[in-house]
């Protein structure tokens, strides 16, 4: 299946500050509301505002939520561990950028 996909795709510059509601977040991640609440409690997700009575998050929360769900399911890590793992991964990324810029 090494055929070239000849469609030229136009990417949209993605603004990570786009907001989504808790309900949308649950849907996109196939997550329970209760999990999102726990993630907020643990400090893994930071709500940025309110919309129609619901908490809202930046779109970056999608990736964070999915990562936590995977770590829990695949590696048996609890929430506190997952929170730490995410923070360490962020730090590694920052260091990588620093190394890149010389």
């Amino acid at each position, binding site marked *: 299946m*090494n055929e*070239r996909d000849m469609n*030229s*795709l136009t990417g949209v*510059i*993605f603004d*990570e500050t786009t907001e989504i509601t808790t309900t949308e977040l649950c849907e996109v991640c196939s997550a329970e509301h209760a999990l999102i609440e726990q993630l907020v409690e643990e400090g893994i997700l930071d709500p940025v505002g309110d919309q129609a009575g619901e908490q809202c998050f930046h779109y970056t929360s999608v990736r964070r939520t999915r990562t936590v769900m995977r770590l829990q399911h*695949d*590696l048996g890590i609890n929430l506190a561990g997952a929170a730490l793992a995410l923070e360490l991964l962020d730090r590694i990324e920052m260091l990588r950028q620093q190394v890149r810029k010389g």
Partner: protein
Amino acid sequence: MEFTDYYKVMGVARDATQDDIKRAYRKLARKYHPDVSEAEDAEERFKEVGEAYEVLKDTEKRAAYDQLGADWKTGQEFRPPPGWDEGFEFSGAGTGDGGTAGAGGFSGAQFSDFFESMFGQSRGQPRGAHPGGREFHMRGEDRHARIHIDFRDSYTGVQRSISLHVPEMTADGHVVAQEKTLNVKIPKGIRDGQKIRLAEQGSPGIGQGKAGDLFLEIEFLADKRYRVDGADVTLSLPVAPWEAALGATITVPIPSGSVGLKIPAGSGQGSKLRLKGKGLPGKQPGDLFVLLDVQLPPADSDAARELYEKMSQEMPFNPRADL
């Protein structure tokens, strides 16, 4: 179908204890989990390891598997001998030891043909027959990739073809890395670190679920002469000492075309000139800074050395005055 040597996959000896196997799994799972692994084939390896563990962690399955003998090698054509699993009690995947995940991974339990026909719930049935098949829909996972471009491409936008490693199931159920090529238009004015979202180019959904998105993170390649910081671009411009000290007008090629640059007299090493709006384009275009990098003419002839000598005698100059 092809045999898979689960002991080899897990890197344990055939007489490893259950504890050995559990330890090995834990280490390999952490090593190859796609969220924390840097390996390109992390997803495939993770699934492989998960499947091996699914068999070896269960004493009944393991015993049945061991019965097949130690002579089979991964990849060999294999048919389970009739009655091979007689006397063993096991049922499908997911008989767990609580707390560790099975080989479920994140896109649902997808095992190879080898596993399914030996241990799967649908064993004995042709692949694709789902006992009590339940309709299950889920949006596909988002995928993230990084693409390197020259910062100059941001001035005009650029079209690039990128290759992705996508884990896919082959006809016999093994998960392999397939190369997928996409042509992407990268918009003008893109900044280092920005992400481009390609809708529905991520992992396929399950059932009627839509595919996830593909996020491409842009990374500028390092450049000898230029440094980019946000929308601002800094050019390190080599100049002669007299050009800096006495001033000069220089034609400088810059990403958006050549520009005539007026260097004021009295400039020095590290002097910075600002060209407003000549940085990366955008609603708020960045600036282009020109940083003077004074180069010394080499003292490689008698005449040159005499000139330097003259300068040292006739120009009072102490560069270390504040040391």
